[in-house]
């Protein structure tokens, strides 16, 4: 059985937070994950105004430190204000070199790159061509 720990962003990090606060937030998340009773962390972002420096220091550095796979399995963000969603995805993308999107449950998954897209497109075209030649 997996156990989730809930963190209220505004209560824990402040409604409006600096880069320094982002560093403290990252340490807090890592400490929470280290505790025996916590398999993954769910952060409620309701009401938080996220600055680029906070987002980068907290989530950007976090994904760079623990890696995409671990981040994806252990961190979910809930109720992200729309502007903050675009910002957090931007810092995660920049730190990982991937293009990520949020899932409904608040974790992130990569979207296909141009190369991946072209490769998939070629596969579909090849399949269609093969079927056409069979006919």
């Amino acid at each position, binding site marked *: 059985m997996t156990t989730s720990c809930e963190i209220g962003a505004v209560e824990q990090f*402040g409604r*409006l*937070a*600096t*880069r320094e606060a982002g560093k403290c937030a990252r340490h807090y998340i890592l400490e929470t994950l280290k505790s025996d009773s916590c398999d993954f962390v769910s952060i409620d972002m309701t009401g938080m*105004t*996220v*600055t*680029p*420096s906070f987002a*980068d220091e907290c989530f*950007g550095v976090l994904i760079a430190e623990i890696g995409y796979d671990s981040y994806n399995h252990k961190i979910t963000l809930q109720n992200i*204000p*729309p*502007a903050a969603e*675009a*910002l957090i995805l*931007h*810092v995660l*993308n*920049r730190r*990982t*070199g*991937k*293009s990520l999107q949020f899932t409904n449950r608040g974790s992130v998954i990569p*979207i296909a*790159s*141009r*190369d991946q*897209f072209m490769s998939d497109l070629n596969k579909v075209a090849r399949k269609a061509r093969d079927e056409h030649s069979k006919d």
Partner: protein
Amino acid sequence: MYPTSVADLEDWLHILEQIKAGATKQSTPDFLRPFHLLTFAIMVKTGRYKSFKMDLSLEGYANRMRLWDAVGLEPPAQIKAQSSKGRFCPITRIDRATAVPVTQHLASLFVQQMKDGLTHASLEIALLELLENCFMHAAIPRTPLTAFVAAQAWFNGNLAQIAIADDGIGIRTRLMNNPALREDLIFENACELATRYGITADPEHHSGYGLTFSRDLLTMHDGNLMVVSFDEMVCCNRRGVFSRKMRTPWKGTLILFEWKTKNPLDAEAVYNKWPKPKGFEDDDFL
């Protein structure tokens, strides 16, 4: 109401220089904006002036903006208690510990009139980044930094100005800390360079979002960002980015953040415009 021009700024810095050089009487602009009082306050503070006089027509405004309080001198007259809600923020000294409350106070000043949560959040983000930058990058360790912020909105004139000034080490000196920028700095204007996406003095720890966010927010929404640091300046607005050498330098950094109060400011539009990882730009799929 027109935004502050480069000429307005240059003329005013020239006047301050004349006063510093000993001129006892100087003609001042008929209409003062926050940046006038802010730079004057830093000049008085760093020059350790014991007293100064202003034209009576300007004294009232300067007094309401708490000019004398900011520099630790006795004001010429007691100010009548007056609510500044929604119009101006007097000259306020800023330090690392007060960046968040000062930002919240400043952004809240304008929100009652604008009734717009998007603009409020965008202003908070821009201001906190600018104020944090001020302490992160302007200060020399263990040396006190004089830094002030002041703001005024003219809702009927569809303009607001937030000015931040310090007497710190300046943008060029700070950017030289990043070895990757040293060659660029031989040819480039340091203020212009500092406003570009991803430019930072501390590449190991920072990502260079602070000034870029303000530049993009204001250029996208018909505002005006001016950054002056020693003898360099940049002005960013919807017409483009214009940089030059200043006739009269400002010993420190001065930032003017101006926007049209009738235009909502949208931070999300800025983030969506920032570069995507390699292979994911919209053009890559054409």
